[in-house]
C-alpha cells in the first residue's frame, strides 16, 4: 500500500531527512534519492523517500486541469 502524500524535506542529516506534512514531522531515509535538498517535496513510502516531486510537471498538470475548467465554463451557456 502506498501513501501518496507528498512531504517537504526540512532537514537533512547523513542519509536521513526530517520531512513535514502540514506541521507533522517525521524521519525518512533519503538513501534512494539522488542529491536530495532541503525544501524539496518528496513521495514517501514505508519510511523511505522514493521520488522527488517534479515541480514543473506539477504546475503543468494543474494548468491543464484549470484550463479545462475555465474553458468548460466559458463554453457553457449562461444559467
Amino acid at each position: 500500500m502506498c501513501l501518496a502524500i507528498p512531504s517537504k524535506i526540512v532537514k537533512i542529516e547523513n542519509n536521513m531527512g526530517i520531512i513535514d506534512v502540514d506541521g507533522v514531522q517525521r524521519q525518512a531515509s533519503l538513501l534512494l534519492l539522488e542529491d536530495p535538498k532541503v525544501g524539496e517535496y518528496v513521495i514517501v513510502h514505508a519510511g523511505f523517500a522514493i521520488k522527488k516531486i517534479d515541480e514543473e510537471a506539477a504546475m503543468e498538470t494543474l494548468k491543464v486541469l484549470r484550463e479545462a475548467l475555465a474553458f468548460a465554463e466559458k463554453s457553457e451557456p449562461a444559467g
Partner: protein
Amino acid sequence: MTIKHADEYRDPEISRKIVEQINNLSKKKIRLMEVCGTHTMSIFRNGIRKLIPDTISLLSGPGCPVCVTAQNEIDAFIEISGKPDTIITTFGDLMRVPGTGSSLQKERAKGKDIRIIYSTFDAIEIARKNPDKRVIFLGVGFETTAPTVAASILSARDMKIDNYFVYSAHKTVPRALFALMKTEGIKIDGFILPGHVSVIIGTGAYLPFFNRFKMPCVVAGFEPSDILQAILMLAEQIENKSPELKNAYTRAVSFKGNEKAIRIMNDVFEQADVAWRGIGVIPGSGLKIRDEFSNFDAGKKFEIISKDSKEPKGCACGEILTGLKTPVECPLYKKICTPVEPVGPCMVSSEGTCAAYYKYHNGD
C-alpha cells in the same frame, strides 16, 4: 491551509468538469482495469464509480501485494513465526491474512513475538537491540517496496548486523500484465497503471507490454482528479481507436523512473519465477535475494517444510484478481466471508477488492 501537491487534485469543481468531459466523450461500453490496490481504495473512498457513466466498468486487478501472495508463502510466514528465538517484523496488512490453519494475528495472540513496523529501518533497529534474537522481516510488496528492503539489507551489511533476515516474497508488476492478458476469458479495454510502482520503474518499463498488446495504458496518481483524468484519457484512446502508453502522473513518474532505487534493488535481488494467487507461476516476476547476500536470506537460513497449502475452499480470489468476477459474484461474499472472519486475502488486506466492496459498496 492545504496540503501541497495533494489538495489541488481534490477540487470538486475540477473533478466535476472532468466527469462532464468523460460523459460527453465516452460512448462505448468499456472495461478498465486499475492494477494498483491504492487506486481501488481511492476510487471507492471518493465515490468515483457513482460519478462516471454506467457504460464504464472499473475492474480491480492484481494490484494488492498481499492479495497476490500465494498461499504457501503465507503458510511459510506463519511457520517461520514459530521458530525459536525469533522476532517477526511485518507491515500491518499481513497480520490478518488467513493461512491454511492460522494467521500471524492468531499466532501473536498465542504469544509469538510478531511486531508491526512502519519501515524496514525499524526492523534493523529491533535487530540491533536484540542481538540474541533473530529478527525476520516478511518482505511482501512490489517494486515500490523492494528497493526499501534492499536498502535495509545493504545497511545491515554495512552496520555488521548479522541477526537480520528477510523472507523475500516480492513481486514485479509488468510481467504480471503479460500473464493477465493471457488469462482465459479476460476482457479489458484499457489499463490504469499503478502510481508508485511506476515512480520507481518509470513508464518505460511498460513499453514491452504496450508494444506487444497495443492496449490503452495510462499511469495515474491517487487523488480524485488524477484518476478521473486517467479515465478520460483512456476513454479518449478507446473511442479514437488509438492506443497509447501515457502518463497522467508526471509530477512523480518519469520515463526512466528512479534509477538509483532500481540500481539498489538490482544489487540485492534477482529475478525469479514465482506463483501469484489466481494467476499461477509467472516467469521472472519475483525477486529473490542474490547469493552474495544469502546471509540475510531467511528463506535459506531457516528450513521451511512446505506442507500442503490449501487455498480457502470456495474463495474466488483468483478470479477477482484477474477481473473475471466481482466480489458480489462470489457465493461466500458477505455471507461467510467478512472482514471479521475473512476467508480469502482479498477480504483482509485494506486494499483488497472484496474488503473495498464490503466497506464501501452498498449492494447496487
